[in-house]
């Protein structure tokens, strides 16, 4: 089970409270987690990355295990504790604006 923490606006859009729990088949990567997230919550399509599964939106960041993973390639395996569910995968709206 993969644990995903969404920013507040996307939790509201998806209608979820707290963490989202996902089952991801195969290797756990940015892409496979986002694919599973969008499959479970289609309303999030286009809000984190483009509709073709391409690059993340400019003000979106991906954190896990106290590291900024935002610049990794989409198919990079996520850290082991994320894959086992020991640590969450954080999707973060970059700090900016008012």
């Amino acid at each position: 089970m993969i644990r995903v923490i969404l920013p507040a606006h996307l939790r509201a859009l998806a209608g979820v409270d707290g963490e989202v729990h996902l089952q991801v088949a195969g290797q756990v990567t940015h892409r496979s987690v986002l694919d599973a997230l969008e499959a479970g919550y289609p309303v999030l399509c286009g809000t984190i990355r483009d509709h073709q599964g391409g690059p993340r939106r400019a003000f979106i960041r991906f954190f896990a295990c106290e590291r900024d993973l935002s610049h990794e390639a989409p198919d990079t395996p996520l850290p082991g504790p994320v894959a086992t569910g020991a640590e969450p995968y954080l999707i973060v709206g970059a700090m900016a604006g008012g």
Partner: protein
Amino acid sequence: MSSVRVLVGTRKGAFVLTSDGRREQWEVTGPHFAGWEIYHVKGSPADPDRLYASQSSGWFGQVIQRSDDGGRTWQAVGNQFSYDGVPGTHQWYDGTPHPWEFARVWHLEPSLNDPDTVYAGVEDAGLFRSADGGQTWHELSGLRGHGSGPSWQPGAGGMCLHTIILDPAAPGRMFAAISAAGAFRSDDDGKTWRPVNRGLRSQGIPDEDAEVGHCVHRIAMHPSRPSVLYMQKHWDVMRSDDAGGSWREISGNLPTDFGFPIDVHAHEPDTIYVVPITSDSLHFPPEGRLRVYRSRTGGDEWEPLTEGLPQRDCYVNVLRDAMAVDSLDSCGVYFGTTGGQVYASADAGDTWAPIVRDLPAVLSVEVQTLS
């Protein structure tokens, strides 16, 4: 008894303001989609319970919301706006070619007779249509591709298609306006387009009376006389009597002819409203006095409407989509400000009162008259 529903889009959410036909006591609900920019909310003329809202965010992009119960509940529908074919380039602020990139939906215009059909005007300027209640969107690329697109340039707020007008009398005729490209007309349901800017003069472009390149801020039409169009341009208030074929200036005695919104009285096609703003560099009312100006002669002769509006220390702006009228017997006029006030007049502008004073900056105001 009739009632009115005012749909307000703001920088931080949408609000729905409702009242009976007296328009004295108001119920305010919201914020809907709190924290998101709501560029526009509009109801279907064919089904007043069907509403569409443009919800966007610099972080999370574009969402389109739809309500089937007059704004009580909403569901997100399709948000994929893909330009048709290879998008090509337009001009950037410095004149260099810049790829067409979708940023947001500025304006949603539901069909006059089918609640499932709705048009979207977007930044970078393009026109999209949905025929399934907003689930899927397809570009009407004849506008962007008619020939002048590569020369279009953004205005300060971005290169937005902000005005869509559907002609109720001429099937297939529609108008669109773009900052800073100008006005365009289609006579075949949006398949093909041509610029309709003859008579516009703009000092901020190299060729003052160029076919395209004008910063049109807003166009309004009265449904009973669709060949007459009124325009608030970056500077100048203009009028066309031949469906955009030619324009003449009607600024007359306005204190300044810069501004953003323009609208027409529901029952008097020669009565029009503007909100003069000091200048393109001073986006607030002249002398700190918030005045709506009304012409009862289709332009040229204007009177200030001040009763109930702040006449000192007022430095708000009124944006292009933030004025609307209802169609009750005594026509109501509404506008919202960047200071978060929504003002209403139940007597065609003679007197005004705020419905709310402290919303986030208002981006758009629409009104539904309900029976």
